[in-house]
């Protein structure tokens, strides 16, 4: 456990995190999934996100799992995202399994837990496909088309834009904290623990100046938005239509829909 913690801590740097997230958002515009219309993908996602919860047949679930695994492969997701997915799934199910053994569960308990894990895996992979495969601007306009509140659609596009600035700002504050303070000795088990606590504490303290800095920025942002008539534009149907003009379904969408339907149908037939 300790070793794992340390390795994770070494890997974790703000630079790395920023690169991974941005690569995930903008680095895969050339994939097949990115060419699909966001609306098609969102409908597809709703289907794959809901359907597994109503199924209890392992073969059927396995079929769905293979399909979403293939689509995830096609999106070329960043390794960090895949790692987080695997880590989350394994720890959650493993923990539940171990505890259930304490309460007199046996190997028969493994089956239902595996099925549940499969369901969670299908929905998460489907979401990775859609939300990592699409670039944020397209995702936002797809959501807007479905009548999602424009504040949310705006937030998605905005979040990706502000992230590099936020990270940089945060890193600067963090570094100045480190320069001023003396970090504890990280030798030995207790030293490592103290070091971890120290790091978390610094991160938390850094939010005080960060809050002030970002407050300034968010005022600037909102004022710039207001100057361009953001709130009025949102209520205007003509402007919304102009915004959504870039969307269009093509042959890729048709192929994608056909493959999905046939695959599902095939799965049902096997069962």
């Amino acid at each position, binding site marked *: 456990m300790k070793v794992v913690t340390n390795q994770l801590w070494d890997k974790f740097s703000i630079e790395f995190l920023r690169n991974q997230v941005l690569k995930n958002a903008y680095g895969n515009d050339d994939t097949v999934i990115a060419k699909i219309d966001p609306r098609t993908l969102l409908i597809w996602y709703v289907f794959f996100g809901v359907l597994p919860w109503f199924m209890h047949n392992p073969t059927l679930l396995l079929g769905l799992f293979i399909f979403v695994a293939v689509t995830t492969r096609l999106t070329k997701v960043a390794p960090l995202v895949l790692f987080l997915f695997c880590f989350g799934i394994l720890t959650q199910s493993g923990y539940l399994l171990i505890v259930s053994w304490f309460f007199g569960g046996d190997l028969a308990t493994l089956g239902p837990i595996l099925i549940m894990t499969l369901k969670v895996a299908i929905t998460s992979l489907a979401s*990775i496909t859609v939300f990592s495969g699409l670039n944020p601007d397209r995702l936002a306009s797809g959501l807007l088309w479905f009548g999602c509140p424009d504040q949310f659609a705006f937030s998605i596009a905005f979040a990706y834009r*502000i992230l590099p600035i936020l990270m940089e700002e945060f890193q600067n504050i963090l570094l100045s904290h480190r320069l001023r303070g003396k970090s504890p000795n990280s030798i030995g088990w207790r030293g490592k623990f103290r070091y971890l606590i120290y790091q978390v504490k610094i991160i938390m303290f850094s939010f005080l100046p960060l809050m*002030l800095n970002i407050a300034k920025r968010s005022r600037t942002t909102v004022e710039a938005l207001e100057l361009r008539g953001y709130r009025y534009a949102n209520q205007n149907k003509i402007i919304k239509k102009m915004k959504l003009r870039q969307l269009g379904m093509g042959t890729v969408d048709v192929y994608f829909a056909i493959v999905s339907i*046939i695959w599902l149908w095939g799965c049902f037939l096997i069962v």
Partner: protein
Amino acid sequence: MNKSMTQSQKLMVFVLSMSLYGLATLFTELIPSLQVGIVEFSIEYFIFIPIALAILFDPLSAALGAATGEIIFSEIMLGQFGGLGELEKFVTITIAIYLAGRLVRDPKNVKNIACIALLAVAIQQLMGATVDILKVQFAIEGFEAVPGLPESVFFTEGFACLNDIFFSGIFFSMIPTAYLVPRLHGKIEPLLGVKPRDRETQLSGVKLSPKVIGICIMAFIVGIAGEFLSEVGIAIIDWEASWAESGISIFMSMLLAGVIITALVIKFKRRQANLEVMYD
């Protein structure tokens, strides 16, 4: 004198809360948890950020901003979007932060702030645990019949909930909020062009009325309902499965599906190869 905030100031609070809490969730998502036996010292969330903002500014904007920020930064950006399940998190976080912001009367009263920050975590965790237990019950067929499973789910969820209330509640909500709010009060407001909040500040709707609580409960029920759609869905799947009986039709459709998939895979591969050549 009108002391309530204008629409654009509310938008500022929303943007501020969204970006800060979003950034914080990006980190908490990645900081490893420390497990000592079954007690988990994990950093659930840096909820002190939106709670502090909700106390200092407009509670609803801060709450909605935080919930949105969490979904966008930690779920969508890291590809962990859990579908309708996120609705529950959105609703519980919003309710907890909103209530915290509404309950504090005076941002200078540190004791009051500390208690309410802890209370907000408790509210959020209790709602979350309820939904989680129901979710497992729904996902596993014949939940009660599986040996050891119901007890272990109740145990793990209940324990995790208490664990989080005390660990996250004290270290990541109570202490930091009590530390931050007095330091930010009067300093951060001018940056947004807002008057510092005090006892006389008019929030939209003066008191925490039964109506507000009723709306919160309703929203929570909607959040749960998002997770459990009716059992009709199960019936449809069963019906379709029994309908497929002809061996030839199965074989033919499988073959067709296989052919189409291979064709597509080849096509995709080729396109990818072309692109890679272009980039080289």
